[in-house]
């Protein structure tokens, strides 16, 4: 298929949007590219928002994929502070909330996700999704204050770690029986429970917020186990929901994510979707999945941009993400939904360690604590169809690359 006539318009201005625009240009698309985003920032990376941006280590501009003026210099129009209101697929136009109309040849939906609301939460609770959210939260994190984090997932725990570094007292409330339950197995979640407790975070598991009310400048919380306490600041970090309203309203099939094929195409041949807002069939995992990671935002956007230009490359990257908490870098790969065995290599309490999730003898997931270098081998292992010796996996004297056969680097 030939590249589309007319401008390529990207709705959303997050990391996936930025990579899509940059890749279209790099791969030789010479037409107009228009990026529509409702924030005031050019496309940026979100990982520092729950880490360096809170502690002040990372300045805002450092999160930008490219400086704001790079886009104009490369013929990419950034419509920032602009909200895409609706799409008319028969007229090939996007309508903005300020009345402007943006015509497209091909349309890319990069609408991202938003922080999930806690039902019944009073106004004044905070979320963390955007630079604006991070700066607002940072202004509340001054020494001597207290923070309640509702939801001990990746974001909640990263904020807890940053807050402890800033001298804040932190309570983390988790409905599950261990932290980060959506992305790590119990064995790893329980290790992080110990880590946070040893750093002075008061982590409560198996309980949830029954009620919450403003009490002067503070927030009073009552938990389902009857406990109650006050906090100066409350962060709700209970996951994200994809922004699909604009896609649904124009009749594109959605199911907790905009449905796309392995090339990133929606049900409309001229409309594509990338990144967090997408639900796709993942050939390696053999199921439909929505991925919410930095890696996916980058790799999916790059792959789909090439497909818009007719390359026809199916997207099948092994899922991969990481988190930094205190002095620990945890990298995880695979996103398995089932495993029947856990194998450790090393002990996380005494140094770098690896954890493997096996299903019927095959490695389906893996984690590396303070050992990011080995991730490339773990990701390759997850792509293998053959079984791997659990004895070798557990044996630190056996290099992982030797288990990958001839193709290893």
């Amino acid at each position, binding site marked *: 298929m030939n590249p589309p006539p007319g401008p390529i318009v990207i709705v959303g201005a997050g990391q996936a949007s930025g990579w899509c625009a940059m890749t279209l240009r790099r791969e030789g698309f010479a037409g107009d590219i228009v990026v529509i985003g409702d924030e005031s920032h050019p496309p940026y990376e979100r990982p520092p928002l729950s880490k360096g941006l809170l502690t002040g280590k990372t300045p805002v501009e*450092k999160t930008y994929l490219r400086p704001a003026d790079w886009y104009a210099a490369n013929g990419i129009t950034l419509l920032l502070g602009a909200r895409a209101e609706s799409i008319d697929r028969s007229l090939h136009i996007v309508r903005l909330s300020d009345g402007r109309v943006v015509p497209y040849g091909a349309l890319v939906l990069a609408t991202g996700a938003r922080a999930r609301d806690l039902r019944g939460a009073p106004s004044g609770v905070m979320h963390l999704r955007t630079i604006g959210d991070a700066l607002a939260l940072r202004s509340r994190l001054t020494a001597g204050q207290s923070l309640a984090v509702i939801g001990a997932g990746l974001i909640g725990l990263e904020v807890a770690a940053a807050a402890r570094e800033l001298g804040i007292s932190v309570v983390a409330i988790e409905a599950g029986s261990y932290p980060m339950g959506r992305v790590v197995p119990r064995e790893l979640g329980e290790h992080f429970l110990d880590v946070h407790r040893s750093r002075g975070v008061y982590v409560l598991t198996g309980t949830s917020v029954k009620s919450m009310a403003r009490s002067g400048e503070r927030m009073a919380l009552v938990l389902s186990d009857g406990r109650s306490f006050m906090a100066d600041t409350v962060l709700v970090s209970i996951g994200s929901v994809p922004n699909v309203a604009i896609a649904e309203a124009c009749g594109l099939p959605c199911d907790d994510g905009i449905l796309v094929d392995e090339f990133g195409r929606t049900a409309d041949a001229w409309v594509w979707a990338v990144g967090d807002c997408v639900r796709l069939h993942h050939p390696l995992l053999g199921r439909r999945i929505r991925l919410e990671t930095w890696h996916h935002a980058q790799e999916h956007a790059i792959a789909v941009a090439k497909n818009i230009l007719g390359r026809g490359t199916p997207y099948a990257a092994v899922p991969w993400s990481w988190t930094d908490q205190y002095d620990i870098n945890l990298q995880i790969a695979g996103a398995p939904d089932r495993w029947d065995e856990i194998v450790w290599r090393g002990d996380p309490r005494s140094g770098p360690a690896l954890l493997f999730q096996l299903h019927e003898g095959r490695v389906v997931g893996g984690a590396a604590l303070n050992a990011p270098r080995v991730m*490339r081998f773990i990701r390759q292992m997850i792509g293998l169809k053959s079984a791997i010796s659990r004895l070798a996996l557990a044996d630190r004297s056996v290099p992982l690359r030797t288990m990958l056969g001839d193709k290893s*680097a």
Partner: protein
Amino acid sequence: MAEWHRVASEDEIKEGEAFPVTAAGAAIAVYRLEGALYAIGNICPHQGDVLLSDGFVDGDKIECPMHQSCFEIRTGKVLGPPAQQDVPAYPVKVEDGAVFVRV
């Protein structure tokens, strides 16, 4: 004004390995490819806080250990995301078994 700095002895630089050095305040890694020596900046420009020499030498490429940005060892040219800037390449010479880098 760029000057030559002695950074290693020649036998310390091995094929398939990165050799991290500091010269005139710059973090640099020296590599040996098919016998010849090359020196490029050693800090990944993506976040600016990771040493490329902790990563993987993959043929004529070095891959960042943290987020897998990729650079050409001979030129410092960025080959793979997330990094988007090249790392600097420095002239290298060998005299009497000592490796010098011009910074």
